[in-house]
């Protein structure tokens, strides 16, 4: 059954590629906008040049810096807001208001403040990536079963013991869900910022290849970025499933 589904999928994808190849070769598609898949594969070699590799390294660094910030602030602040009713009442409405602001409008501001280098990209990506982490950590911390806390308290657990051995493990699956969604948002943020204003980075090359009508390189870059994102996301999803195995029902991620 699943074998034949995999087969059907492979056939479908290959058929799609074949139609695309034929359409491009037969000039049904404008060659300025579309390259046949065989040429796209060939163009991947063009990407392995020092400037593009340096751009990829920079983008990776920007993602790493932004994600580390988003994870640290999101988890730290999220635990605080989730654990203390005062913080929850005070800060949660503020977090929700900021969450609903379209961050895109702040990008020009960040570039004005921080220039077109790494800092503005990281800050903008952080502003997108921090919210899924924050909201999932708050939700996960607040969803902890009260009777488990009471039971631990009756068995002599200290406040710290309750936090470390009841609240944290109970919230862990939500924390990881938040980190995963935060990661995709962070990548999105970095690429958006690079598309908007940059002189290097993968987003800059996407913009450069499309403006200089190099569809083969553009598609090659697109497939590489897509493949990398899928690998990272799937790896995080695997960790998420492991951490959440004890949960009886699926819990939807917030702020996805």
């Amino acid at each position, binding site marked *: 059954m699943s074998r034949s589904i995999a087969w059907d999928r492979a056939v479908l994808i290959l058929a799609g590629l074949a139609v695309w190849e034929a359409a491009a070769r037969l000039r049904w598609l404008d060659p300025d906008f579309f390259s046949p898949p065989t040429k796209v594969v060939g163009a991947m070699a063009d990407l392995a040049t020092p400037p593009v590799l340096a751009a990829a390294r920079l983008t990776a660094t920007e993602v790493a810096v932004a994600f580390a910030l988003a994870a640290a602030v999101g988890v730290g602040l999220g635990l605080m807001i989730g654990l203390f009713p005062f913080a929850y009442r005070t800060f949660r409405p503020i977090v929700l208001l900021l969450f609903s602001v379209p961050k895109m409008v702040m990008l020009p501001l960040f570039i004005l403040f921080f220039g077109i280098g790494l800092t503005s990209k990281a800050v903008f990506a952080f502003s997108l990536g921090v919210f899924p982490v924050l909201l999932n950590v708050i939700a996960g911390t607040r969803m902890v079963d009260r009777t488990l806390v009471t039971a631990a308290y*009756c068995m*002599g657990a200290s406040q710290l013991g309750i936090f470390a051995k009841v609240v944290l493990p109970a919230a862990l699956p939500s924390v990881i869900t938040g980190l995963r969604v935060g990661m995709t948002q962070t990548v999105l943020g970095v690429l958006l910022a690079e598309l908007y204003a940059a002189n290097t980075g993968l987003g800059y090359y996407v913009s450069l290849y499309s403006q200089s009508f190099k569809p083969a390189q553009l598609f090659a870059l697109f497939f590489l970025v897509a493949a990398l994102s899928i690998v990272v996301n799937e790896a995080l999803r695997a960790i998420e499933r492991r951490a959440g195995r*004890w949960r009886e029902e699926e819990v939807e991620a917030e702020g996805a």
Partner: protein
Amino acid sequence: MIQFKDVGVTYAGEGALGAVEALRGVTLTIERGELFSLIGPSGCGKSTLLNLAAGLRGPTTGVVTVGGQPMPRPRPDTIAVVFQDYSLFPWRTVVGNIEAGLEFRGVPRAERRDRAMRYLRMVGLEAFAGAVPRQLSGGMKQRVAIARSLSLETPVLLMDEPFGALDEQTRMVLGEEVSQIFAQTQKTILLVTHSLAEAVFLSDRIAVMSGRPGRIREVIQVDAPHPRTPEFMTSKLFHDLRDHIFRLLHDEMRASVLGLHRGARAEDRG
């Protein structure tokens, strides 16, 4: 061992409900080594009494002591609690759940595993040591929770409707098992239940409570040796006691279920 002296509890009002008087003038003494049951209609404050003994809340009026000392907070060296919903940590294995209690109590790591396994054997679940709670039936989960409470080796055990979520057959079998274990352990046990059969089968004494505000209507002695066997359940004593409690509870339960209580009690007082 556990003493309630003229205890009253009033919950502060929320919204349109106003203040609720949960308990009034409850005086009870539970002797050392005794299994004492609280039975009554829902909302009669029997769980509140148990929470008072656990140190999870204080009385509005009166005094609660365990071993002669007041209970401003839980005393894990003296009292273990079994809750209705098992309260197992779902991310830990069965044996890990029992070890959790020992961790909180500060038992050295080397000792924990042996002690946990010993109590797991007592409830007949040593084969499931490595399972996670999700894989167990309700009855098995409650046996793990009971093993966890026993492993804390406290002189007092409080049980809040421990078999409430289980089906009739499971609670009967578990009841017999528990009766055997308790006969060995010599603990002072306070059991909250709404099952007449369970109360009579397990208890040395039973307090029958009236509906809100909860008061003690009658304390009934069950004169039969422990551990009790299924034969006890078919004895005349068992049936007489059960019928007696049923008659005591019947009106209370009707009133409580149909929501007539406030009116009915107002008439009583008037």
